[in-house]
């Protein structure tokens, strides 16, 4: 399910956070790639994030850096039957027993995983 009404503002805010995190670790060295992990439950639209990245990075030292987005599926574990379910929609219900007492295993990630630097 695509969140069709999600504003691009959301992705812009996230891109600014990505840029500042990457810049902090790059310490002025040239960056060629920034890899992020975004959980499905974060409602980030990858195309909108890429677009926002171009806008945000173009004004910074990161303008040559490619943004690589790793999407992390939302996975829940049922507290009743123990089954793990990968969600197709944000409905937190066990796929095996329909139980709604579940623990979220993944899907809320908002991580900068790594940055790639050109060797000096």
């Amino acid at each position, binding site marked *: 399910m695509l969140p069709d009404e999600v504003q691009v503002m959301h992705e812009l805010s996230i891109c600014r956070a990505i840029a500042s995190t990457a810049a902090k*670790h790059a310490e002025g060295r040239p960056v060629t790639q920034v890899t992020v992990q975004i959980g499905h439950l974060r*409602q980030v639209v990858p195309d909108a994030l890429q677009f926002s990245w171009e806008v945000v990075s173009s004004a910074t030292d990161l303008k040559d850096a490619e943004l690589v987005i790793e999407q992390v599926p939302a996975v829940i574990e049922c507290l009743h039957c123990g089954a793990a379910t990968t969600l197709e929609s944000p*409905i937190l219900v066990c796929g095996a027993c329909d139980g709604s007492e579940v623990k979220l295993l993944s899907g809320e990630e908002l991580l900068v995983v*790594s*940055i790639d630097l050109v060797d000096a």
Partner: protein
Amino acid sequence: MHADGTSHVHERDHDGRHPHDGVTSQVVDGAPSDVGDHSGYTETGQTRITILENLLSENDRVADDNGRRLAASGVRAVNLMSSPGAGKTALLRKTLERMGGSVRIGVLEGDIATSLDADQLEGAGATAISVVNTSAGFGGECHLDAVMVQSGMERLPLSDLDLLIIENVGNLVCPAEFRVGEHARAMVFAVTEGEEKPLKYPVMFRAADVVVVNKIDLLPHLDFDLDLFLSNLTSVNPQARIILASARSGEGVEEWCDWLGGQGERELTHSED
């Protein structure tokens, strides 16, 4: 995607720890000796530095500071969120009229460009009101972040307050992701918004400790299916406390105020009704 992507994917879950915990892994320093596990990259003239840092860690650090400052002053803070027009300000006015005489309430108003919401609250019973316009930076920010709340708090007499209500910018997406130092999160949803909203905006609905279902005085005039909405809400957030209310008629306002008043007496856990 990239060739060695799998080499660090095993780290992503961190035993299910919630991403809001901040830095999810020790930051690897940039010295080349520290990135031996990604040595494949040196052949291409590049070095990969593993960071594994939560994007919101800086925001969350300031949010934690805010939370500590509030706690030190004995103030409980509630982050009030909704889409534009759901009735946050009207509910807030009713809240101040009802509770303002017995509880010292501060209001931190987040607004993109004006103080119109704060103007509506004038004379309603707040001890202090601080307005934070989010239009600094480029464009108007669609949410309050921890730094904005920090600056808004500086203009409030915290030692004279019991409760701080942070009225976030009207938006169903962004405010949910930015902790600001609150002790509890409340969401106002208007029945004019449609039953499917919890499924479209699960991040927001999942973030709420309490959902005030507002404008129920309009139900006779709408096709809104309340049971379907409640079922959608429960499917994305089984723990949410639900209060049916109308800021206009006053229905449910007492229950909401009781919930708010209870925030000062206990650490917030998801209440079971």
